């Protein structure tokens, strides 16, 4: 009886679910035919005929849309990886300041966290770009013996150049994410028992050494999962690049939709790229997590 009921229920849900999907797909195909959009990917191999300001690999406007999308994906990856590093660094510093003994620092980092966490990222990005980087007007040009050039074009450092768009996105994302990472770090540090602090203090070990030798290693297992989800958020938030003129995968998708009208196809490509990015991040973090657990033979 019970098993029958279950089967019946599942069957019902099944029918409703697939029925719904069927109707939607049916509507979609009707609409696509009606609007003459059709569903194909052959346009991917036509020349893109737009230029890109930043391309880690060679790219010209006569390359294909597919290649342009790949370049966009690389651009996304570039900004994600670098802001991930910067955000972790900043977040750790702020997390430490928040838990440390200097109450002024603690107060400031608490203020930092509330301000950053309670204003929309999009606004922050636009602020960083239009006010922060583009605000470096020509008269603010800083030049140090041709090694470091800072201007509203971006930053040039001994041959390496970073555009303002990239930098604004990097700063915006890192600062925004760092506020969240700081809370993750703080949570991790607080998860280590008070006794551990007292034990190293009573051995005469300094605060900074104790933090790095005793507290952090024990806090890591509590920190890693929170960190992973912040990294995923960062990756997803990087699509706001479009607001500051950086050519990430979403922005390039946007341009392509405009030129070709292939909204559905582009949407699918976007989904797949992000599923890939996610897999990349979770797997990397999983490996790191396993390495840490491995180094902790005691557990």
């Amino acid at each position, binding site marked *: 009886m019970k098993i029958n009921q279950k089967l019946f229920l599942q069957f019902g849900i099944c029918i409703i679910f697939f029925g719904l999907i069927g109707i939607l797909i049916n509507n979609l195909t009707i609409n696509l035919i009606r609007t*003459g959009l059709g569903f194909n990917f052959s346009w991917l191999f036509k020349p893109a005929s737009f230029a890109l*300001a930043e391309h880690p690999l060679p790219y010209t406007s006569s390359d294909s849309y597919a290649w342009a999308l790949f370049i966009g994906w690389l651009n996304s990856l570039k900004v994600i990886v670098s802001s991930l590093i910067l955000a972790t660094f900043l977040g750790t510093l702020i997390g430490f300041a928040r838990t440390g003994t200097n109450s002024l620092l603690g107060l400031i980092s608490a203020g930092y966290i509330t301000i950053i966490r309670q204003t929309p990222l999009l606004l922050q990005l636009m602020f960083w770009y239009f006010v922060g980087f583009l605000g470096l007007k020509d008269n603010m040009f800083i030049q140090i013996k041709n090694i470091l050039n800072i201007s509203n074009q971006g930053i040039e450092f001994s041959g390496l150049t970073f555009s303002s768009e990239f930098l604004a996105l990097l700063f915006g994302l890192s600062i925004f994410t760092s506020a969240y990472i700081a809370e993750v770090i703080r949570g991790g540090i607080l998860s280590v028992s008070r006794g551990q602090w007292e034990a190293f203090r009573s051995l005469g070990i300094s605060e900074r050494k104790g933090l790095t030798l005793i507290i952090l290693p024990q806090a890591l297992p509590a920190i890693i999962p929170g960190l992973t989800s912040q990294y995923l958020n960062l990756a997803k938030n990087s699509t706001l690049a479009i607001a500051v003129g950086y050519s990430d995968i979403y922005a390039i998708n946007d*341009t392509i939709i*405009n030129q070709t009208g292939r909204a559905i196809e582009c949407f699918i490509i976007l989904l797949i790229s992000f599923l890939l990015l996610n897999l990349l991040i979770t797997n990397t973090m999983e490996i790191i997590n396993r390495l840490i657990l491995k180094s902790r033979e005691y557990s």
Partner: protein
Amino acid sequence: ATTNQDNSSRLDLIKNRSELICGVSGKIPGFSFLKSDGSYQGLDVDICKAFAAAIIGDSEKIQYRPLTAAERFTAIKTGEIDLLSRNTTFTLSRDSSGGNGLTFAPVVFHDGQGLMVKKESGIKSLKDLANKSICVGSGTTTEQNINDAFESSSLPYTPIKYQDLNQVVAGYLQGRCSAMTSDRSQLAAARSGFKNPKEHIILDDVLSKEPLAPASDGQDQKLADAMRWVVFSLISAEEQGITKSNIDEKVQIAKNNPQLKPLRRFLGIDGGLGEKIGLSNDFVIKVISSTGNYGEIYERHLGKNSEVPIPRGQNELYKKGGVHISPPFN
């Protein structure tokens, strides 16, 4: 433009609904922008009003949808908006059923893509911009044109792409780019808002023809016909000197003088022209008495005394050396 498969036209839908849903940009000075009182204004907006006056009989029955460049075509294709009056360049691939599948009404503003630079930069022509950054609006024909222009003369450049004109202007003013490119009308409009407009010059190079025209779904012949003739009526009215202020007078004259055949046909007293395109016969009267003729609309938003003065230039009537001309209302 292709033929309609099912006979229902949006035109009837709009009439039934008694409201026109008009896609605009909402962020282009002189063409469509939000006033402090919350209303939309500009040339593109007045074109919407003309359509509403003609189709519904009331130029205020409009729902404006601010659209980004990216969403405008899908919005038409999915029927979210009835028509688009949003600085859209009339091109082959947009007009064709194999491309974006739209159909365009006559051009309401002849533009050309240009470049604006700071006077002090000493840049005189496209060549001086080699290896420089240029601010562009993304996903627009502008983006493609600038690429074509630089590519054909084999000059390297860096495009900095923004989502809307507003941001392009900001990027340019802040010195992110050595030049900004857009339709020359928009360059002029933007420059008029600058603190020191004189410090910026618009280069003589014209990168492209940019005929801006309202658009609608390519499969809806009926709506397209109506739109086409509404626009022509604006031009034709200017050709005939019919204005908002003298329209009533002109109607009286036409009514009283059966010999003025063309005028009577134009104003819908004879000939039943309006009905042929699914509108009322007196649609011209409604249009002109609500928005005025093309010249008036132009003066209002882009004329010498407006906030964004742009010389009429090509946009004069053909009689005065411009390109606007209306086919006969026969």
